[in-house]
């Protein structure tokens, strides 16, 4: 199963919205949470619609519009979305209203927009797209699930143009509660008392792709495969899953020109560090969450990054952790996990 990336649209904590420019002015993320650099939505959405839309909906619709324009596609054959949290701001708004107003005088807008498939649905209404429309909501493999579904569809019909997206938002309230619950603490099984946990910087983003089975010179890169697994019992389990994944794609570790790791900072965690000095020790290594932050669909940002690297044939200095600039760059592996629950591999290749 292969799928070519023919369009990109990315709203993130970096200046990524303009597809011609690639990470020229990299900003350091604000701790403990970073918001996106948002475009002027009025250029993309009518005021009468914009007024009702929360932030993540604006981000999703706009990134999708940018992406479709980039691909030269008006109405996609499917709209497949991954989002771990859905529309947080609207959910918070309605929930707070229910509690504060004791279930009286409630208004519908934030409830309607709290359903997880709202972004995909809104895009469909705007484009009058009657085609297949799915939303996956499984933590940090939401985007990977959407990608798998997209690739399966293309396997059935290579002529399809699929709008594939990964998006999540962060709010101050959501961060406050989840931070209290320890959900931003990096994986660390050897906690010592007294212990101050290392934390990830929370982020957000909306990243869209148009993918198709049709090869064209303008394509950015291609997805070759995706695989997910749950709570591996040891780093040995991760290594064997990796070998199985590469083998399934007819590759060995030496075929990988760059691995993009989902570690939050240069410290990594014991799992990343173990694999980095194990099976990955001869592979060029990079990372991306210092650019976009930690959020459930950050792997969509990683895929955007990989697609650009493969198209432009250069790894930005800020991305490279270990190793050197290989030429030519043919295969990029992305490996993501946070807190050792859901792991994913994605494989991208130059066209």
């Amino acid at each position, binding site marked *: 199963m292969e799928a070519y990336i023919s369009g990109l649209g990315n709203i993130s904590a970096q200046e990524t919205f303009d597809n011609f420019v690639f990470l020229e002015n990299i900003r350091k993320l604000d701790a403990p949470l970073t918001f996106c650099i948002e475009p002027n939505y009025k250029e993309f959405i009518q005021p009468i619609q914009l*007024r*009702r839309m929360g932030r993540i909906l604006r981000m999703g619709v706009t990134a999708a519009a940018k992406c479709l324009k980039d691909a030269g596609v008006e109405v996609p054959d499917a709209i497949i979305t991954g989002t771990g949290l859905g529309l947080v701001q609207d959910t918070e708004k309605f929930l707070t209203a229910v509690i504060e107003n004791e279930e009286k005088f409630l208004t519908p807008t934030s409830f309607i927009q709290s359903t997880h498939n709202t972004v995909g649905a809104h895009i469909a209404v705007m484009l009058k797209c009657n085609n297949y429309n799915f939303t996956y909501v499984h933590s940090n493999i939401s985007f990977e699930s959407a990608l798998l579904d997209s690739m399966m569809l293309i396997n059935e019909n290579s002529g399809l143009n699929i709008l594939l997206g990964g998006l999540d938002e962060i709010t101050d309230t959501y961060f406050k509660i989840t931070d209290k619950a320890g959900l931003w603490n990096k994986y660390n099984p050897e906690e010592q008392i007294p212990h101050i946990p290392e934390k990830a910087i929370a982020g957000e983003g909306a990243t869209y792709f148009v993918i198709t089975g049709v090869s064209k010179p303008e394509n950015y890169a291609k997805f070759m495969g995706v695989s997910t697994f749950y709570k591996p019992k040891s780093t040995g389990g991760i290594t064997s899953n990796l070998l199985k994944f590469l083998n399934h794609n007819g590759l060995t570790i030496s075929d990988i020109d760059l691995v993009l790791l989902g570690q939050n900072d240069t410290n990594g965690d014991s799992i990343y560090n173990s694999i980095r000095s194990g099976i990955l020790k001869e592979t060029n290594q990079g990372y991306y969450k210092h650019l976009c932050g930690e959020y459930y669909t950050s792997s969509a940002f990683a895929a955007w990054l990989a697609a650009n690297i493969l198209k432009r044939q250069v790894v930005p200095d800020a991305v490279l952790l270990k190793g050197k600039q290989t030429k030519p760059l043919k295969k990029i592996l992305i490996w993501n996990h946070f807190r050792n629950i859901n792991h994913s591999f994605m494989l991208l290749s130059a066209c």
Partner: protein
Amino acid sequence: MADLIEKLKTEIIEALNLEDLEPDDIDKDSPLFGDGLGLDSIDALELIVLLEKNYGIKLQDPKEGKKVFFSVQTMADYITANQKN
């Protein structure tokens, strides 16, 4: 009546998040829905709550909504006729 109309315009702008509009931009007799201000069925539901929350008037039959919410003036007329003080 004029005060109520101005108050209603502000409340409508706030309830429906019409960020780019000022009260002066809304003509009191122009249709709120369809071709006028372009509001839709979700906005109608929001206005029903506005009536109840701010004026204590519960619309007995939601289908009355079309007449009541035709314009700011018709809303004001309805409130004046039905508000219990």
